[in-house]
């Protein structure tokens, strides 16, 4: 049992913490969000130069072979800074699909470009008529000679508007499958939307889009299994990001309790607020523990891995809501202005719960599986 980082992991943590401290002051983030595209290509290049974009990819693909703990370290730091560049979309989510399902040729055509910072990808799965979180897509993929024809609509695609290529889930005759779809292709229409958490989103329409045979990721019918794995890796990363956002929220709140004066005393002297701050810390520590569990579960056998990651998503969903709401409440009116960081952290925590199965969704999975024990 060991909860310490290795020396290399500690160096990584220091590096990414420094990146966030140097480049992600809250005012800078506000400017980036208001700018073209809603995120910063310059920051993305900086992340590439630091080698962070290659971290979770295999060494044979040009990456560093990092595992769950390394991704946790990065995502926690990015969560603290509320970083809006497409790390989760490109490196974690699309990256997981490539790592787990792409052929050698498919990987060689993309991963080096991702690592260099020149190829932005994401996953287009959610649809207008879909339940909150399921594999049940209406988008279709028909065989057309050697290739495929895709029709459908995808919503809430994170970083979809700035992406060069999207991984699209679609029904084939043999079941669900995943396709690599360049956004410039004829018949692909990508319209930008903005998420309440600041994440640039996109609505994607596919109208009889012609794809070559090598656009298929894995085999027809494997889509669900691949996506399940992608969601596990992404949820483990989301949970770590949430812990970073919660820690920042907690620190801002305790700082405010110490410095904000009302009735001639710091408001942190009032027991009603002191005890609630303690409850926030408890939720934060429980979530931190579960982020570690999720990160260390990625290499476990399927059943235990799934349950552990679901449990972490439950904890973070519940804790993130509590910490976000309490932070806003204790800040008072300043907590609900767009000019202050706490409200933005609250929004990101809210979005994280909504993504890839909220707390209730994952509770049901655990309940149906008769609990966490293997």
């Amino acid at each position, binding site marked *: *049992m060991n909860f310490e980082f290795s020396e290399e992991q500690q160096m990584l943590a220091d590096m990414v913490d420094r990146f966030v401290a140097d480049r992600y002051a809250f005012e800078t983030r506000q400017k980036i969000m208001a700018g073209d595209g809603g995120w910063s290509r310059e920051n993305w290049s900086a992340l590439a130069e630091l080698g962070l974009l290659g971290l979770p990819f295999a060494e044979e693909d040009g990456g560093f072979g990092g595992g769950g*703990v390394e991704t946790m370290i990065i995502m926690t730091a990015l969560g603290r800074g509320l970083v809006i560049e497409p790390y989760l979309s490109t490196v974690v989510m699309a990256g997981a699909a490539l790592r787990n399902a792409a052929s050698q040729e498919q990987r060689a055509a993309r991963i080096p470009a991702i690592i260099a910072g020149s190829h932005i990808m994401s996953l287009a799965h959610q649809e207008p008529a879909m339940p909150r979180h399921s594999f049940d897509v209406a988008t279709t993929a028909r065989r057309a000679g050697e290739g495929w024809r895709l029709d459908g609509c995808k919503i809430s695609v994170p970083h979809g508007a700035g992406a060069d290529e999207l991984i699209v889930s679609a029904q084939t005759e043999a079941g669900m499958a995943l396709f690599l779809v360049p956004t410039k292709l004829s018949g692909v229409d990508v319209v930008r939307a903005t998420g309440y958490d600041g994440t640039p989103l996109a609505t994607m329409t596919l109208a009889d889009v012609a794809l070559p045979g090598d656009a298929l990721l894995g085999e027809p019918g494997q889509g669900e299994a691949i996506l399940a794995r992608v969601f596990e890796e992404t949820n483990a990363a989301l949970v770590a990001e949430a812990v970073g956002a919660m820690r920042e929220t907690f620190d801002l709140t*305790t700082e405010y309790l110490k410095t904000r004066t009302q009735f001639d005393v710091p408001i942190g002297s009032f027991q009603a607020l002191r005890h609630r701050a303690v409850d926030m810390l408890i939720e934060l520590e*429980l979530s931190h523990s579960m982020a570690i569990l999720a990160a260390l579960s990625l290499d476990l056998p399927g059943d235990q891995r799934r349950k552990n990651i679901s449990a972490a998503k439950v*904890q973070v969903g519940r804790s993130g809501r509590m910490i976000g709401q309490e932070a806003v409440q204790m800040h008072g009116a300043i907590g609900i202005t767009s000019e202050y960081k706490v409200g933005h952290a609250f929004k990101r925590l809210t979005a994280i719960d909504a993504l890839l199965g909220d707390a209730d969704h994952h*509770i*049901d999975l655990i*309940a149906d599986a*008769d609990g*966490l024990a293997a």
Partner: protein
Amino acid sequence: MDLDFTAEELAFRDEVRSFFREALPDDLRAKMIERRHLEKDDIVRWQRILNARGWAVPNWPVEYGGQAWSPAQRYIYQEEMALAHAPEGSPFNINMIGPIIARFGTDAQKDRFLARIANLDDWWCQGFSEPGAGSDLAALKTRATRDGDDYVINGQKIWTTQAQHADWMFALVRTDSSGRKQQGITFLLLDMKTPGITVRPIETIDGGHDANEVFFDDVRVPVENRIGEEGRGWDYAKALLGGERSGIARIGLSKERLIQLRALERDLAERGMLTGRERDRLRRKLAEVEVELRALELTQLRVVAADAHGAHAGHAASILKIKGTEIQQRMTELVLELAGPAGLATDAQAQANTAGEGWVEAAAPFYFTMRKVSIFGGANEIQRNIVAKSILGF
């Protein structure tokens, strides 16, 4: 980073597990599983079995019979004890007065008391709380006046757990009222057979008689039964707080209860007594509490690991106590809900009503009695005060 115990720790776990399995008397195990009341003799019997194995007081210094276990081993020991349905023994003997005498006592006090404490030859109770001194313990007023080689005690203690069984009491008494209220408190050891001590039982909401009032009327205590210096009792009592952290969240206990709840859920479902929406709802509630318990367990293990590195986070014990007790209480709520109206009768007739299913009649008393865990040992609100001071700095 990894969450696995080492090979040595796993071997230790196996050793502890098989010892508990073989050494715990069947009648005690049955009582524990059904949450029936343990008699004094039950606890003494088990403590002596542990003591014969050398494991009665593992948290003590080795020279007084303790074990040089790592925090991880201590955690494993406590978890296995709970999973084996073994009683925890007397916390007043094992976790409180033993370590205090070992650390602050004179050689004569160590010789006289420690071996008897470990073997439960003497049953100890704790004389801390008073009618006017609960959370504000330092407000205590029980008075000790020096008279030759004795102190003469007058006053009253209350909520004294199991004072009716006790041979000895360790008590905080006031020897000086002139300074800050934390000063002038003295730590004394009292023979419960001393003339002038009256023990009066208090019935608690679970129907039990574990709590007592203890009155002192000119009770003479020899000065040699004082711990450390006069007036420094508060420091000695405080030195123990937060000291023993590997078991404070009582993870093993809650795990054992969760296992029981799941078995109960399956059993009732098979017999058609838990169906449809009701069953789904219970399964979701169990999943919720299991997630919290897993998160708390890992948090406890993080503290255990930090302790092994000597990296103390001062307020960790309070956090573990708050969340640990909340989860313990949650477990009792779920059992109570499962028992439903069948759990209303808890007297002799209950056995007949529920066809000998001990858990049904024990559900309500257990629920009621477990309300105490967030009150004693520093109420959870006091724990929150401790943590708040640590994170806010004032």
